[in-house]
């Protein structure tokens, strides 16, 4: 928020002289005529936007600015804030109410992307799979394949709904579970914006709420949540849901069946994943033994719950988020072989340059200890 503090100082410095001018020209009056660049109020707002945007853009979480109208129809400087940023709410509240006497307005939004078919492939250096028409967000006929959109049936709060990827199947003592992330299935830990928290027995649905206009009745229940509480005290971001009979196959969309064996990560190892947002993508392991800090929210679009420092993580090249992007959490990362690939890691976090995965054997060890047996991948 240092940038915002500086912005406040800058605004205060210029407020005195500008207030006289703006009162005279009536910026706060209802703008007359067409609201184009010839409108005086719009021109003043554009001047304020152009002056302060460079400083605003230094603040992590600020995606951009624009000139628009406030709720009273007056020209305003709009500041777009990444709603996925852990500090989004605080950042929105910290904005000064006006910039050079032009009102400001914060809008929480998803990251801006070009509206074209996503580029496939991750960080280069590996053969990318060809584009596919397979949908990773559509409701499927049972038994569903994994690598698809899914999540907790009540993952709706603060005016938003959330979701991720149903990644793969694991089994413990002969019982099969869908494997995904803690923050996909069970991270709602405050009553907050939706009045509920995630509980064992809650429905896990396909597709996730984000792909059915936040309406769970438009999705199907495929499993029931078994809370294992991996975070904040353990070194893995995982969760499981017991499979409803006949609802889930062990095949992963565009990957097919996997091996029941696992393999450790190695530098430059070619890997692939099948996920809700970017579908089937490939990349390579760019780092090992990573110690990484990740901040988590206490519910969908909620406040920061805790910041976790993970150790021993796998880093994967993720240039421009083409390997892994928002909604892909929970995807299983496997070696890039055509048949029965072995699992390498459970993807859970990333930036626009690197993706992060828990080593799959750490995940299986944790689940085995929690579920009272030996956990393994369901595969050939």
């Amino acid at each position: 928020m240092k940038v915002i503090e500086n912005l406040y100082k800058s605004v205060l410095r210029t407020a005195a002289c500008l207030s006289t001018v703006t009162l005279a020209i009536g910026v706060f009056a209802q703008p007359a005529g067409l609201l184009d660049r010839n409108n005086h109020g719009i021109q003043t707002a554009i001047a304020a936007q152009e002056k302060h945007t460079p400083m605003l853009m230094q603040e992590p979480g600020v995606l951009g600015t624009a000139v628009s109208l406030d709720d009273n129809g007056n020209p305003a400087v709009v500041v777009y804030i990444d709603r996925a940023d852990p500090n989004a709410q605080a950042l929105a509240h910290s904005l000064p109410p006006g910039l050079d006497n032009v009102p400001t307005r914060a809008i929480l939004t998803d990251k801006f992307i070009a509206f074209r078919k996503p580029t496939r492939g991750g960080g280069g250096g590996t053969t990318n799979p060809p584009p596919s028409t397979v949908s990773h967000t559509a409701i499927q006929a049972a038994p569903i394949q994994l690598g698809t959109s899914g999540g907790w049936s009540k993952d709706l709060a603060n005016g938003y709904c959330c979701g991720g990827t149903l990644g793969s199947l694991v089994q413990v003592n002969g019982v099969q579970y869908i494997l995904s992330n803690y923050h996909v299935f069970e991270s709602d830990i405050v009553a907050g914006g939706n009045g509920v928290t995630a509980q064992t027995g809650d429905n896990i649905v396909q597709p996730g709420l984000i792909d059915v206009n936040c309406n769970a009745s438009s999705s199907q229940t495929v499993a029931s949540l078994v809370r294992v509480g991996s975070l904040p005290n353990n070194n893995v971001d995982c969760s499981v849901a017991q499979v409803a009979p006949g609802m889930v196959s062990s095949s992963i969309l565009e990957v097919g069946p996997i091996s029941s064996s696992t393999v450790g990560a190695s530098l430059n190892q070619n890997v692939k994943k099948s996920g809700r947002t970017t579908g089937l993508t490939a990349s390579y392991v760019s780092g090992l033994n990573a110690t990484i800090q990740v901040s988590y929210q206490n519910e969908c679009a909620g406040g920061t719950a805790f910041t976790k420092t993970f150790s021993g993580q796998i880093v994967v090249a993720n240039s421009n988020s083409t390997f892994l992007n928002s909604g892909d959490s929970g995807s299983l990362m496997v070696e890039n072989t055509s048949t029965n690939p072995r699992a390498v890691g459970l993807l859970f976090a990333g930036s626009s340059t690197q993706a992060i995965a828990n080593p799959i054997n750490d995940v299986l060890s944790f689940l085995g200890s929690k579920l009272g047996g030996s956990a393994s991948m369901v595969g050939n």
Partner: protein
Amino acid sequence: MKIKWVILLAALSATFAGTGCQRAMTTNQPAAEQTAAAIINQNSERLLALPDVVGVYEGLMPDGKTHCIKVMLSKNNPATLKQLPASLGNYPVVAEVTGKVRPLTR
């Protein structure tokens, strides 16, 4: 472009890293006996305490062969770059601006 940026940051960190800082970041163990994992384990807490450092990992230099310690930064921070050591053990230290690492639900 990105590779140039990483090289620039590496050069900056190498230029500005003082020997005192290096001593502060390294341990008394002989460097030859330390694996990258051990070095990361021993130094990550102090590195993560630096402003805008979000991660540390074992990676490869642009030649694709030489192992190094990579320090992930949420944004460019010249003051933090100055405090990074040029190397840890036998591993060169390379800074890279990755942005914040966040959970990837939607």
